[in-house]
């Protein structure tokens, strides 16, 4: 929310405005539909890289709607949006690093515990 100053306007008039919930239920429907699509793929498609890619893409779609609408990040100031999103890129870096170096790292860890 941009600020809290305007909330108090309602207090003075004593009236409670009508709820604005259209966008919330819309987001809910989207999340349900995407989950249903994921299930359809889980049962109608054989496991493989293509199916996993579809799953990951649909997960990112769901994550977007949760963060943007439910957590309200889409409506925050640009600076706040970037200060959350840019550090998250470090996770992608971790994934890429493990894809490249993962075999060596895995060997060392697993040999250590043997």
């Amino acid at each position, binding site marked *: 929310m941009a600020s*809290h100053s305007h909330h108090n306007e309602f207090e003075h008039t004593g009236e409670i405005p009508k709820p604005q919930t259209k966008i919330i239920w819309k987001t809910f429907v989207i999340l349900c539909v995407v989950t249903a699509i994921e299930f359809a793929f889980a049962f109608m498609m054989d496991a493989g890289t293509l199916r996993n890619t579809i799953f990951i893409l649909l997960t990112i779609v769901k994550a977007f709607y949760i963060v943007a*609408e439910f957590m309200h990040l889409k409506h925050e100031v640009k600076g*706040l949006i970037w200060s959350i999103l840019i550090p998250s890129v470090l996770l992608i870096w*971790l994934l890429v690093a493990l894809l490249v170096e993962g075999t060596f790292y*895995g060997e060392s860890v697993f040999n250590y515990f043997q």
Partner: protein
Amino acid sequence: MSQTTTFEQPKTGTWDGGNEPFKASYGKLMMWFFLLSDAFTFGAFLTTYGLARHRHRSFEEAQALLPEAQRLQEFEFSTQWWPIPEKVFNAFPGFHGVDWPLAFVALMTMILILSSVTMVLAVEAGHRMDKKDVQKWLLWTILFGSMFLGCQAWEWTHFIAGDETGMTLADGSKIYGANLIVNQYGPPLFADLFFFITGFHGTHVLSGVVLLILIFINTVNGVYHRRGHYEMVEKVGLYWHFVDLVWVFVFTFFYLV
């Protein structure tokens, strides 16, 4: 506004802290950065899961290495290959022995998404200073959150106890269920990661429910109404949505992929 008497005028200059570049309160910003650090924790957990999974053969890969005559036609649990999640999580309370792959986890996902919706409705009611609605939606969120925890308790109990098929070891003995050392469903690491990842997420849900109960009591007592804003509901809401967000990823990487 119920404000205590200020003896000093606050400094309002740009470089005296008067500027608010993110247009968000200190508490909300810190909640965001806490959640960011929590995302790294869960990211590390799921990356570890990916690493452990890649170190093990899948069922198909393991079969391809065997001579033609010894290959299995149907999937079986074995410590030699990583289990297929659909085969592990196929039980539903009250339907013993029925194969309903992923049905129970689908129900849990729906409950958590619904709780996220009721949470955002509580936040929306807070913006309108509608105390009654905040109470109503917070109660629904507490209910759905507790339901999710109950489901997870059942899921864990079933996973730990196992079913009567069990797994036959090389020496002929049988093991049932899973713990941190043995695992009926596959390599012990699979059970370890199941306990760590869903357990860590469940602990987050439990903390969330405790926070929700606290802010519900405060709302009923009119603490936030006197304060003039329901920002605390917003902050706990951020945390609650994050827990839902983590579940979306756990669901994909643990149950679907």
